[in-house]
Structures are given as C-alpha cells and as structure tokens.
C-alpha cells in the first residue's frame, strides 16, 4: 500500500492565557490512496487543530512538532513559500460553514479559477471551472458562473468548496466537518459525493467530524480523538461492530438512531486543554475505570484490526446483546390539551411603491392536536416552516387560523388573561447562550419567570431557583455564575430550568440539541424525557434530525414546504411512511446498529 499522508507523532500547542497549551498530542496516522480515514472527536478534542496542522494553517503563535509526510516532503519543516506550492495542489481542504469559508464579494467562478490559477497559471480558466462544477454536481453550471456564494443553497456552497479543493486534482482531501450545519438529506448527498470522488480520483480523504453516524457508511478507517490524544484507531468495519475503547463504545451508544429505546449518555464533560487528567484522559468519565487508569496514559493494545489505548479494553460482545429494540406497545392515549386548526403564517413580502406583493406563506393550513404529557415531533428541512409553526403556537407571530389551549382560543383573550395563558407555553431555543442575557447571572435568569408570577420573598425565590437547577441535574452553586462560563450542555439545561420555572403545560423545543455534541445531546434528551414523565409535560419538539425526533416523540408531523405532509404515531410512521419525503428522511437518519 502506498501511503499518501503519513503523520508521525504530531503535536500542536496554542498560546492560551500567556502559555502554550497542548491541543493535540502525539498523533499518528496513515492514509493510503483511495482511502477515507475518519478523524472523530467531540468539540474540544483537538480534531480541527489536527487537521489544520497538516497544512500548517494554524492560527498565529501556534507551535507544531512531529512529522507530516506528503509526497516525500515533510510539511512540518517546509518553508512557507514551498508549503504554498503544496497547499491546494497536493492537498485540498474543505471547511465547515461554506458561507463563511467563501469570499462573499467574489464570484464563485473567480474563486474556483483562483485555486487552479495559483498553481497552473492562465487567465479565467472558464473551461476548467465548468468541468469542476459539473464534477461536483452543480446543475446548469454555465449560467451560474457569475453568481456569488450567497446566491447558492447550503449544499451547493459545499459543492463549490469541493470544486475549489479539487481544482488541481490533489492526492489528499482534508474535509473538516463538511456536513455539519446541513440538512440530513443534503449532508448525505455531500457525503456520498465525497465518497464517489475519492473512488474516481483515487484520492486519500481525511474526514474530520464529531458525528460517528456520518462516516459509518463510507469510512475505511477510524481514529478516535479524546482530549487531544488518540484513544482508538483501525479499520472502520471492526470499529463500528466491536468498539474496544470504553469511550468509543459510549459515544456509539449515545448516537440517536431510528427506533432506539434508550440513549446512553456519558457522565461529565470533556476536560479543557489546560486541565487534562494525567493518566487516561477518559478515566474520570469512564464506567469501567480502575485505580491504575489514572496513573499513566495506557499503552496501545491491538486486537484484530483496531488498536485501543486502554488498560481494560471492552471484550468483543455478541452483536445482538447490545441492541435495544423499541418495545412494541400500543400508542398511548392522551387528553387533548392544545388544538391547532388551519394555521397559516405569511411573512410580509417586499413592499414596493404599489403596496405589498403577494407573500409566500411560510406555513399552510396546519392542523393537529397535542395531548397532556404527549411529545409531538416536528421534522423538516430548513425553510420548511417548522420554526414558524412553533412561534405561531407561542403567539409570537401573527397567524391565520386558531390555536386553542384547553378549548380557549388565544384570539379571544386580551390583556392580562392572554399573558397568563401565554405563560403556560414555554420555549427552549437552539442556541442556549444566544438566548440568555450575558449580563444576568444564572440565578436571575431562572428567577425572572418566577418573579412574573407574583411577589416571592428573596429566600423562597433562591430556594426555588436551586430546586430547579437540581431538577435539571446542575449544581445549585451555578446560580451565581454568568452564562458565558457554561458549556453548551450546561447552558441548555439552564434554558430548560428557565422554561420549567414558569410551570408550563407545554414546552416548545426548537432544535434543542443541534448545537450540542452527540454525548451531550443524549444526556439532554434523556433529561427531557424524564421531566416529561414526572411532570406530565407536553412537548412540541422541532428538529431537522429525524432520529432525535423519533427517539422523543409519541407522534411525528413531517413538514415539507410549509405543509404537514404526514402525521402519525412514531412507530407506525417508521414502519410504513406514506409520503416519499418521509421515507427519504428515515433513510437518511442513522439506522439501528446490527441491522
């Protein structure tokens, strides 16, 4: 086998708080031509820094040691001018969030042509640009040469990024989270495109991701990073069937899959680079931790095609023992609490000199009911109107149609009565840190809905806040902190505590976990599930992730282009989707393991 990329003992440190903090330590990996290696880790594991180190694109002040061998050259020691000839020509790179990664004020064609011109010279190279755009599947490419990045859809932008990376037919493609932030169906298409291009061009691919389910179908090899160090690496096939490291096993168990009964979450959180434990880094969170795990970093132990850095690797299990199928139960019955009838929302269109133009409705004629204690999942791609639906129910948007809470129409209520009723519906947003005032302490944030309900003595208020914090599994001492100091998972729990403070009947969860890591997401979903059972809370869970919705919801509504195309009990919907779009969504979601 001829290795395209060989990384030897690579370490990278970034200056943080006045000293160099190691982010990636002693990374070794080899990728052969035509092979895809998935570098997997949660946020903070150092995977992006590892990918950037290969091309030496680290932020200023970073230090790099070790060897990066690409085409007979050690990139780690190459002078900048020579390195520039390697970048783009021998190795192409695709980044997360293509809208930011493309220059907003230059046409797509000029940006792709630049990638070719830098290494091969020539002028506008329209022929090569068209060829590349065709290769990555941009329809009607000739007509789009003069378009700017903002005129493309999210998936097309990522295709443009790929065209740019492939301009000089590199031997190595580094893809840093190219599918995160995209709708599942689009993400799947991009993933398939990368897999196809790798085969056709016999290209080595380093695929960096936080989500194991993304690479399950296509990766040849996997390398798991945890807190800057590799914990398990080897053949993807064996990794996915028999993970050896407890962390790999736990992370695989925390991925929401269609028809899963219970998610396994990993307790605790990833250590900051400044405070990584001395021994095995996963030891403090590990369910199988022994006293000697905390003394020294475990040496690699090989078993079959994978190697795990663990003193006590997991035994190879019988495949079927680990699969928990959804228990087949009759659909639960609920007392109707919320009724939505013929709900339509139109956003004001462009206003010209001659009044408003006819606006496209964001939501058309949605009708459903929600029972007490029920969880209704709303799935759809971005722009399908699912957030609009949530906001209309919460009376945050003008709408047509009726929203009835316990048989009372909101339109019939005014003033204080309307406010009081409105308070029984609460909302948890996608980005918890954006939805909290950064100048208020956590305690004040949670106390705000309590204050609105009436005067409470200070001591009682504090006690209530502490109870709520403990409800969502947080330390009561957190009340004195500011939101900026919390991790994403903690912040989202605070947001849930704030919603609970109003003692609502219904909580609208608008993409509550999509900004969180897989293991944090599992923890949060389990928490929400438990609270719903104990408090008889109803949820409207809005998400683009079908697996998450199917895990939580009793019934699922599938939104497509502003219409509910299908609404059914979760089990029935998965077993027999009636709409083609539903079937596609289910197919794109992570499937149960061992099937």
């Amino acid at each position: 086998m001829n290795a395209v990329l060989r990384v030897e003992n690579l370490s990278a440190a970034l200056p943080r708080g006045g000293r160099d903090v190691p982010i990636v330590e002693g990374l070794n990996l080899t990728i052969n031509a035509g092979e895809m290696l998935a570098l997997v880790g949660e946020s903070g594991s150092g995977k992006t820094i590892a990918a950037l180190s290969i091309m030496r694109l680290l932020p200023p002040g970073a230090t790099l040691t070790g060897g990066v061998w690409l085409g007979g050259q050690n990139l780690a020691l190459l002078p900048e001018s020579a390195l520039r000839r390697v970048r783009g020509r021998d190795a192409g790179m695709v980044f997360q969030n293509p809208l930011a990664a493309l220059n907003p004020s230059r046409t797509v064609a000029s940006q792709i042509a630049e990638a070719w011109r830098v290494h091969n010279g020539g002028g506008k190279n329209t022929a090569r640009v068209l060829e590349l755009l065709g290769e990555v599947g941009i329809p009607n490419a000739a007509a789009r040469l003069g378009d700017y990045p903002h005129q493309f859809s999210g998936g097309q932008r990522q295709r443009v990024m790929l065209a740019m990376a492939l301009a000089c037919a590199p031997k190595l493609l580094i893809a840093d989270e190219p599918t995160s932030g995209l709708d599942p169906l689009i993400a799947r298409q991009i993933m398939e495109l990368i897999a196809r291009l790798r085969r056709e061009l016999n290209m080595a691919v380093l695929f960096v991701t936080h989500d194991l389910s993304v690479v399950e179908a296509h990766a040849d090899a996997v390398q798991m990073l945890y807190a800057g160090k590799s914990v398990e690496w080897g053949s993807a096939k064996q990794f996915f069937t028999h993970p050896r490291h407890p962390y790999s096993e736990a992370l695989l168990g925390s991925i929401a899959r269609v028809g899963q009964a219970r998610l396994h979450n990993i307790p605790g959180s990833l250590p900051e680079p400044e405070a990584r434990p001395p021994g095995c880094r996963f030891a403090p969170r590990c369910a199988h931790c022994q006293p000697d795990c905390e003394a020294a970093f475990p040496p690699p132990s090989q078993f079959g095609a994978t190697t795990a850095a663990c003193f006590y690797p997991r035994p190879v299990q019988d495949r079927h023992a680990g699969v928990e199928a959804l228990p087949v139960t009759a659909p639960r019955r609920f007392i109707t609490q919320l009724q939505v009838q013929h709900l339509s929302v139109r956003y004001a269109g462009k206003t010209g000199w001659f009044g408003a133009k006819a606006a496209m409705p964001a939501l058309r004629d949605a009708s459903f009911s929600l029972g007490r204690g029920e969880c209704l999942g709303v799935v759809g791609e971005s722009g399908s109107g699912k957030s609009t639906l949530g906001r209309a129910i919460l009376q945050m948007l003008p709408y047509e149609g009726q929203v009835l809470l316990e048989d009372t129409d909101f339109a019939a209520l005014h003033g204080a009565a309307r406010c009081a009723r409105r308070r029984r519906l609460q909302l948890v947003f996608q980005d918890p840190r954006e939805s909290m005032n950064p100048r208020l302490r956590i305690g004040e944030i949670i106390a705000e809905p309590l204050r609105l309900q009436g005067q409470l003595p200070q001591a009682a208020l504090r006690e209530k806040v502490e109870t709520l914090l403990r409800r969502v599994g947080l330390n009561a001492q957190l009340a004195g902190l500011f939101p900026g100091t919390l991790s994403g998972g903690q912040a989202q729990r605070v947001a849930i505590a704030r919603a609970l403070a109003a003692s609502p009947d219904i909580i609208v969860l608008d993409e509550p976990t999509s900004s969180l890591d897989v293991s944090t997401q599992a923890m949060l979903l389990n928490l929400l599930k438990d609270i719903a059972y104990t408090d008889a809370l109803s949820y409207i869970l809005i998400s683009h992730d079908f697996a998450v919705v199917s895990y939580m919801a009793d019934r699922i509504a599938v939104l497509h282009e502003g219409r509910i195309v299908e609404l059914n009990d979760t089990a029935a919907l998965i077993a027999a989707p009636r709409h083609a779009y539903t079937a596609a969504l289910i197919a794109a979601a992570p499937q149960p393991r061992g099937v």
Partner: protein
Amino acid sequence: MMRMVARRLAASGLSIFILVTLVFFMAHLTPGGPAYSILGLKANATSVAQLNARLGLNQPLLQQYGLWWWHLAHGRLGYSYLLNRPVGALLWRYELNTLVFYAIAISLSTGLSILLGLAQGVYFGRWPARLIGAFQLGFYALPPFFIAAMLVLWACVRHRWLPASGMVDLRLAHPGIASYAAHLVLPVITVTLFTTASLSRYFGEAVHEELGRDYVRTARAKGVGFTAILFTHVLRNALRPLVTMLGLSLPYIFTGGVIVESVFNYPGLGWLMWRSALAQDYPILIAIVLVIGLLTVLGNLLADVVNGLLDPRASYE
C-alpha cells in the same frame, strides 16, 4: 438601484425641512440682529427700525419663514444683508474654494488611511501597529485648531516657508497656481492629519477583522500568497466600513472646516458660515445649513451606493 436612490432622497426631504426650520427660528430668536452689524453697535433706534423695515425683518416671523420658502421655490435664496449680494452666487464662489480644499484633503486622507490601515491590520498586536495606533490616538485627541496653530508657528513664523493665511497672495497682480497651492498646504495638512487618524483606525480594525475570517483560511489552503490574499480578497471587504465612515463624515469634516478655515482665514464655506453667524446674516446662514443638510444626505447615499457595488449581498429592497 435608481428606485432606492429616489426613495432615500424623498425620505431625506423631511429631515432637511426640519433642519432648515429649526435653524431659521433659532437664528431669529437670538437677540440683536443684522441691523447692528450693518449700522454699528451705537446705531439709534429709529435707524435700526428703518433698516429692519427695509429688510423685511419687522414682519411676523412666520411670514418671513413662509416668504423664505416662497423665494426658494422660485430659485432665489435672497440677498446677504451685510455684503448686499445674492446668496446663491456668493455661496457658489465660496463653495468652489472649499471644494478644492476638501477634494485634496479627503483624497489624501483616504489614500493614507488605506496604507496605514493595511499595515495596522497586518501587523496587528505587534510594534508597527502599536506605533500607528499611538499616532492615531494622538492626532485624534489634538484639536485641529491646535495643530493648525502649531503648524503656523513652525512653518510660517519660525521658518517662513509658507504663507500663514488667506487663499492667495494679494500683492501679486496675476497670482499663479503656485501661490494658491502654497496657501493650501497647511490647511490640507491639518485636515488630513485629523481625518486620517480616525479613518485609518476604522480601516485597520476592519482589515484585522477580515484577515481572521474563514475565507482567508480557505484562500491560504488554496495556496494563495499572503500579498495576493490581502489585495484580492481582504481589501474589498474591508473597504466597506471605510466607505460608510467617509460618507458619514462628509458633514463632520465640514464643521471641522469651520474651525480650520477660520484659523487659516481661508475663504471657504465654513469661513463664510462663521462670519455670517457672527453678523446674524440670516439668508446666508440658512442657505449654508441647507447645503450642509444636502451634503449629509448625499454623503450617506453615496456611501450606500458604493457599498452596494462593493458587496454583492447588499440588497436595495
């Protein structure tokens, strides 16, 4: 785009109307009056009353105000009380002087700001940027009249290199372009120092910010050299805040011009405004305010149009 321009102009009409109205009444409410400027402070009451009647100042204020708009609608801005000449022609002569002065000063400061800002953005956090930053802060903090006075003391009084005031040497029968240029050197330096200080700071900040963006990393990953990234990727995006600043500072520079023009006795619009305000020469004062208002609107509009050309995402709807 034409539609946007038309709509913006229509919306600005109201602002200009309010501005002119406010200035008209505030100017007329101040005690004294143009009669004393014309007749002298010791003028007796009857001659003042006679003059006021001749100038129409004894009529009710609202009527005078209406008359002013009536005349404007017929394209007349009135006559200067003090100089007894039509305001329109007077304004145009002084405006030309100001235009020459500021066209030079603003082009110079824009060019300097781009150079300094690029250096500051590239060397952000290191000594070249810190040095530039210190100069920016220093010149921003120094009042223009102080810079002007120091320049006059050094270049005119001490070394006698340059004329200290005026626009042209009055002793010359046929003053050449060199005489005009020599008189412009010090005012232009004063204004340039002051405006460059703030403009380059904004631009430097923008360059630094743009250099940290993801698309710069993408360009580096393509193998584009740093200089090429700076000029083909970063510059255009970083220019947007600079253009906005330039548009916004058009009237601001103008009020700064009152001070600089009066210090150097340069017969521009700012100088005329200062003199007219002192003499309570209402027609000129209000006409100048009208011009400033129009300049403000045009400056903002121009900035938006240029930014629209720089940024394809900008939508005019």
